[in-house]
Each structure stands twice: as C-alpha cells, then as structure tokens.
C-alpha cells in the first residue's frame, strides 16, 4: 500500500476518488456532533453548561497528539526507508497539527477561566501541550530554513523523533504530577467515567475533526507535490520532467 502510493500521479488519482466521501463524512459528523454538543447533551452536575467546551477542546487535544505521532512515524519512515512521500506527509501534517494544538490551548483557556478562575496555570498538562506547540513550530521552521529541502526535511525529522517523547508526557502528566486537570476519564482501567450522553457528542466531534484532518492532509500533500514539481521545472530551466 505504501509503495503503491509512492507514485505522485497515483496518489492524486486516489485522493480525487476518496476526497468527496471523506469531506462528506466530515460535514455529517461535525453537524451531528454540534447538534448533540450544543442542544441534546445535558449540562454537567458540577460544571453546568461549561462542559460543552469539552466537545471541542478534547477532540482538538486528541488531534494534536495523533497528528504529532503521525509526523514522528512518517519522519522515521522517511529517515530509515527514504519513502518518497514520508517527509512530504509529515510536512503536510504539521500546519494541521499546530492548528489543533492552538485550538486545544485557546478552548482550554476558555474552559479554565470559569472552572479554575484562571486563564492559564503552569501545570504539567498545560505546559507540555504548550511545549508541543513549540515542537510543531520548530518542525515547520526547520523544514523551511535550508536552501536544500532534503537537509531541512532530515533535520525536521530528527526533531520530530526527539520530540515524540513529549507525547507520553502529555498523556500521563495528570497521573505523574499534581495538576488541576482531571485524571484520564476515557482510557482507564474500569472503562470510561463519562456518561454515554456526553460520550456521543465527544466521539462525533472527534470523528468530524479526524475526517477534516484527512481531507486537509490530502489537499496539502497534493499542494506540496505540485510545489516540488514546480521547483524541479524551474531548476531545469523551464523544461518539464517526464
């Protein structure tokens, strides 16, 4: 499958075929998710209506972590097997990941103020997510800071792999240190601690965000493939590559 998609023309063909379905699923899940999140789901017995921020905050956080993991894996594949689309995929995913990290931080801040009485606290979870934001920034900066794109890709890939250590730190920060954040309430021994009426909008929004991320990833990979092709044409003095 990976080798099959290595051909840019084949990738574009596949992307064209899957794009309408993926975009449609994103719209369906997000629409359903918003109705559930804002209208159907009940207020929390302790947090009241502010719990509704969870339905955008938590899926954003999941996406920020998943996309960084994707970047680390594709960077590893790029460094070890030199797969033609690996570094490109990582480069395409970075702006998506940084957007979701920023959404996670801002919506978290908007949730923190009415619940904790502060927009920001320097606890382990918030600080490690902020560090993730800077990792994304560094990855994107390194990719664009060399004249030779291959050197930029390699340096950024090494940073992505080193920064991957931050992912378990974010996940387990609520268990390892004292924090204002609640402990894990979904992936825990004994099953989820959240009622299904709140789990439904949470998963619907998460699925919606996932399909959005896949759509944008496809668009960005195609854009980077075109950019690479344009660069080659220009290097060859206007002659097209076969």
């Amino acid at each position, binding site marked *: 499958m990976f080798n099959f998609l290595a051909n840019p023309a084949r990738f574009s063909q596949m992307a064209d075929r899957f794009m309408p379905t993926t975009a449609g699923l994103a719209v369906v899940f*997000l629409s359903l998710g*918003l109705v559930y999140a*804002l*209208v159907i789901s009940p*207020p929390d017995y302790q947090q*009241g*209506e*502010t719990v*509704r*921020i969870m339905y*955008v*905050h938590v899926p*954003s956080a999941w996406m920020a972590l998943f996309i960084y993991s994707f970047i680390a894996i594709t960077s590893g594949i790029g460094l070890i097997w030199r797969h033609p689309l690996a570094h490109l995929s990582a480069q395409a995913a970075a*702006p*998506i990941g940084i*957007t*979701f990290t*920023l*959404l996670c931080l*801002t*919506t978290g801040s*908007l*949730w923190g*103020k*009415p619940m904790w009485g502060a927009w920001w606290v320097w606890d382990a979870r918030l600080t490690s997510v902020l560090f993730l934001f800077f990792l994304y920034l560094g990855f994107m900066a390194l990719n664009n800071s060399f004249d030779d794109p291959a050197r930029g890709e390699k340096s950024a890939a090494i940073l992505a792999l080193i920064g991957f250590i931050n992912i378990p730190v974010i996940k387990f920060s609520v268990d390892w240190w004292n924090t204002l954040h609640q402990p894990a309430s979904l992936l825990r021994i004994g099953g989820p601690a959240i009622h299904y009426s709140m789990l439904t909008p949470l998963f619907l929004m998460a699925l919606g*965000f996932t399909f*959005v991320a896949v*759509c*944008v990833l496809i*668009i*960005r990979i*195609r*854009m980077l493939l*075109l*950019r*690479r*092709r*344009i*660069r080659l*044409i*220009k*290097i060859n003095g*206007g002659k*097209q590559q076969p």
Partner: protein
Amino acid sequence: MIEVIREFISMGGHAYFIWPAYIIATVGVLGLWFFSAWELKHQKHILTTLKKGIPKNLNRENADNT
C-alpha cells in the same frame, strides 16, 4: 419560545466562554481547510503558467519561495 432561545444563548450565564470556544474552533477548522485549498489552487495556477512558458521573472521569484 423567545425565552427558550434566550436561555440557550445565555448558556447558563457562561455564554462568554462557550460561544467563543465554538467560534474559534469553527474559524480554525474552516480557515485551515480553505487556506490549504487556496494554496493548492495557487500552485496549480503557477504550474499552468509555467507550462505556458510565460513570465520567467515570476517563475524565478516563485522558485526562491519554494
């Protein structure tokens, strides 16, 4: 009916926190999608221009940016 809508908008007195969170998320997600689509369209335009073999200075300028 108006009372129900007013109650929904006020979000139990937390409207100033809940609505901005949803607006920021919507703007972020849509902005990311549309900006990426615009970038793809822009690269397609450059490629078409290059294939036609016109404005060489424009092409060089774009090469520096890539």
